[in-house]
């Protein structure tokens, strides 16, 4: 980052009447209206806790294929339930902590699914990201042939699974090696 932000000239932000800005305002207002209109029975905090329980259990330090697949199904069901049964008190016109929380939890639900999908796709163990199927006498077993890359996930719209993009890690001078903790 270094002086990336310091060099930012004041007044260089896009104007508020830019079409991109207006589109975001419209999206945000629609989302706020939707969250406030559901008027279900469960609080945003209920979903936050349920989400935490699933990801902590199935996408923690040690995870496996079956658990991650189950977690994705559970999170999709929880996300569907959220958008049908969440209860958000307050209004979009004043400070509304529950609306803020609901917005964050909605994001976390999408992000939790992506995180489990990423862990599922990565069929190797790498450091603390331990897939129990991929181990060598209790040590994390990397698969550099298939996974020597950095990956990002791209948002594909509400309710859609994100798309994965990779950038290969190419080393010209050094050789990849595995550290032994024994």
């Amino acid at each position, binding site marked *: 980052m270094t002086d990336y932000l310091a060099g930012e000239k004041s007044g260089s932000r896009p104007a508020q009447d830019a079409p991109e800005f207006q589109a975001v305002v419209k999206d945000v207002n629609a989302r706020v209206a939707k969250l406030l209109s559901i008027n279900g029975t469960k609080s945003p905090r209920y979903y936050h806790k349920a989400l935490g329980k699933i990801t902590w259990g199935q996408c923690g330090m040690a995870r496996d294929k079956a658990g991650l697949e189950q977690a994705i199904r559970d999170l999709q069901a929880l996300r569907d339930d959220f958008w049908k049964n969440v209860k958000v008190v307050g209004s979009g016109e004043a*400070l509304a902590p529950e609306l803020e929380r609901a917005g964050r939890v909605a994001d976390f639900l999408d992000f939790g699914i992506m995180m489990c999908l990423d862990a599922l796709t990565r069929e190797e163990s790498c450091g603390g990201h331990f897939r129990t199927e991929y181990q060598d006498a209790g040590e994390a077993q990397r698969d550099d042939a298939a996974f020597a890359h950095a990956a990002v996930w791209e948002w594909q719209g509400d309710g859609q699974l994100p798309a994965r993009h990779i950038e290969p890690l190419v080393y010209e001078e050094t050789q990849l090696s595995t550290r032994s903790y024994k």
Partner: protein
Amino acid sequence: MVQDNGKEPTLALKLRVWRQRRGQPGAFEEHALPAVPTSASFLEMMDMLNEQLIAQGKDTFAFDHDCREGICGMCSMTINGMPHGPIPGVTTCQLHMRNFRDGETITVEPWRARAFPVLKDLAVDRSAFDKVIQSGGFITVRTGSAPEANNIPVPKPIADEAMDAAECIGCGACVASCKNGSAMLFVGAKINHLNILPQGQAERDRRTLAMVKTMDDAGFGNCTNYGECQAHCPKSITLDVIAKLNRDYLRARVKEFFSSTGKPSKGGD
């Protein structure tokens, strides 16, 4: 206190909590919580109250919070008349319910000060503090790469004193506890933190004059040595930072007077 075998003791509490919409008069609302675990923090107790209100279809109480580990300066409730509650040297998030009695009525209010208008319920607008910091709570250095730390020797006693002042988390409890609504403990801590370090010398006088002016313009009162701020500061900042602020302010004013050319200042010291 109800105590089952092997179970955590709980408290039955009555709460009088301030309810206010921005720009409108406020009032206390009374609520009861039947079983608050004694290990809950004060903010967790407020979370329980809010969950109960959601279940009843009522609006929750807005309150500020962030790190919940006593370092961010966001939590800001006046509890039984005391900013951050009855335990010295802790923020509201680090105050635990074991410090209250079963059956007790607890009164919860926002910070009350003219310079901190209520946004909603227990949340107040503390941007006046941001303005004070923006006016002088910094040193000007080129960004991009950190300079070698050992280039500027700092004597250990000075470093310690600056660190003590830098403990201030800018929560505003000093203002809320003061009869005059004075922010001088906060401004004193920030001035002391920067003005005694070698790195702070270049802008010392300018900083002091600007921060004091911004503080006065924001509507904070003056210090008359009640010492309430020191008693309620969650970081135990002491009144001597105010004495040092006054000293630095006098120094800067005198220097300004004798160096005045009658032309507007270019901003140098």
